[in-house]
């Protein structure tokens, strides 16, 4: 008969539900614990990486800033020191430096602007016939085999 059978099958379902739920709830608990732990670890690692990248970026921009300051002072003393083209390039470089969004870490243009700063710096070095380096100086080339 449907009634009593239903009641008894409901009871049976409850038992199975509990077992099934147990697996799901344990899984969910594990996931939640893992997620919280992951967020914490991620934040710590992110902070480390962020500090490191930020420092490197700051060091590079600061290095360029220092170079431009020296060049401008040298030019004040002797305006014939560098060719007209080199002076224009230094001025342009100065403008680009000032406009660099150092305090906006989420700015999408950060990498591209940095690449164009690096390239202009290389050109200025060639125009002034000098070579400036510091230990963290980035290189475009990667260690690798010769290609033809």
């Amino acid at each position, binding site marked *: 008969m449907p009634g009593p059978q239903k009641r008894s099958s409901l009871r049976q379902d409850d038992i199975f539900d509990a077992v099934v739920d147990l697996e799901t709830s344990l899984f969910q608990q594990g996931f939640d614990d893992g997620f919280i732990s992951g967020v914490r670890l991620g934040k710590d690692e992110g902070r480390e990486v962020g500090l490191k990248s930020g420092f490197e970026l700051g060091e590079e921009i600061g290095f360029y800033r220092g170079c431009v300051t020296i060049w401008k002072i040298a030019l004040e003393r002797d305006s014939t020191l560098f*060719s007209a*083209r080199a002076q*224009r390039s230094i001025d*342009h470089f100065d403008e680009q430096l000032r406009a660099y969004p150092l305090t906006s870490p989420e700015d999408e243009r950060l990498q591209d602007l940095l*690449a*164009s700063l*690096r*390239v*202009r710096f*290389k*050109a200025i*070095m*060639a*125009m002034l*016939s*000098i*070579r400036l380096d510091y230990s963290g100086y980035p*290189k*475009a*080339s990667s260690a690798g085999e*010769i*290609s033809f």
Partner: protein
Amino acid sequence: MAKKLGGNGAARLGFLHQLEGHTDRVWGVAWNPASRSGGAPSMLASCSGDKTVRIWEQQSTVSSSSPSWTCQAVLDESHSRTVRACDWSPNGKLLATGSFDATTSIWEHVGGEFDCIATLEVKIHGHENEVKSVAWNTSGTLLATCSRDKTVWIWELQPGNDFECVSVLNGHTQDVKMVLWHPSRDVLVSASYDNTIKVWAEDRDGDDWRCVQTLAEPGWGHTSTVWQLSFNMSGDQMVSCSDDLQLMVWDSTVDPSEWTGNGGGPWKHLCTISGHHERTIFSVHWSRTNGLIATGSADDCIRIFAEDPTNVASSVSFCKVLEKQKAHEGDVNSVRWHPKDPRLLASAGDDGVIKIWEFEQDL
């Protein structure tokens, strides 16, 4: 008057001379632009993996039999690694050589002797690794160099044979294989391992150079390394060759510095020539005298293409005129038409020799 060869008759590429002497693969050949001008003999420069550059001269003669070639000079003091590229200045007096040692040297031809008159201080201040190509602009005032470091440098020739860096061009994401100037404008093109061709022009205000177009749209651009580029005589068309086994012809009529910026770019894709090469096409050269396109390939062949005379459609198309198999015993690295004589073609190969060919076609 440029005589357009490439009719319907049988075509032949006859072997004339073999120039031997290099002890490693020959990467490039360059005809001196002054060849056959005012009685001057034909002169050819070749650069090689043996770290030297050789200058070859053909004895000038009025006799009909082909005069012989001799090696006039071996330039071997300047580079410490493979010399990968060489290019004569438009007046034929200066030769620029680019090397895997990351430097570019400039040589001057004075009275039969070659002196290394200047070494661009590119090793220290410029390219960081192997220089792949060097190119003079048409007025001989600017020299472009490119390298595996992904950059293109533009140098200006100053009085006293000094060179000043004008600009460093960033944009390619991989090794830049070749740079070339437009024949009548100060517009530079570059070909790269990143499958693209970039067009560079100077900003109207100031000496900043920027990329005005990248020829790489899906469906148009090459799908693998672009090795070389060549303009036709008038500069209104350019051909490119690639590892993707295709040649592409581009419409380069529009002056990029006058382009206003709507719709893609000043230059357009005209046609693709495919199905003729079995391996990478390393070299392409469009003759300034006969309108033919020559290619050198990794399948050891030289092929010649001409504009299809039977084509009735409004767009251009090209057909293969000739295929010379086993032109070299190894990859053909460079093919170059003579600047004045429409029949002569020079080729350089992995077999360490340079060959001079004569193109003939029945009408």
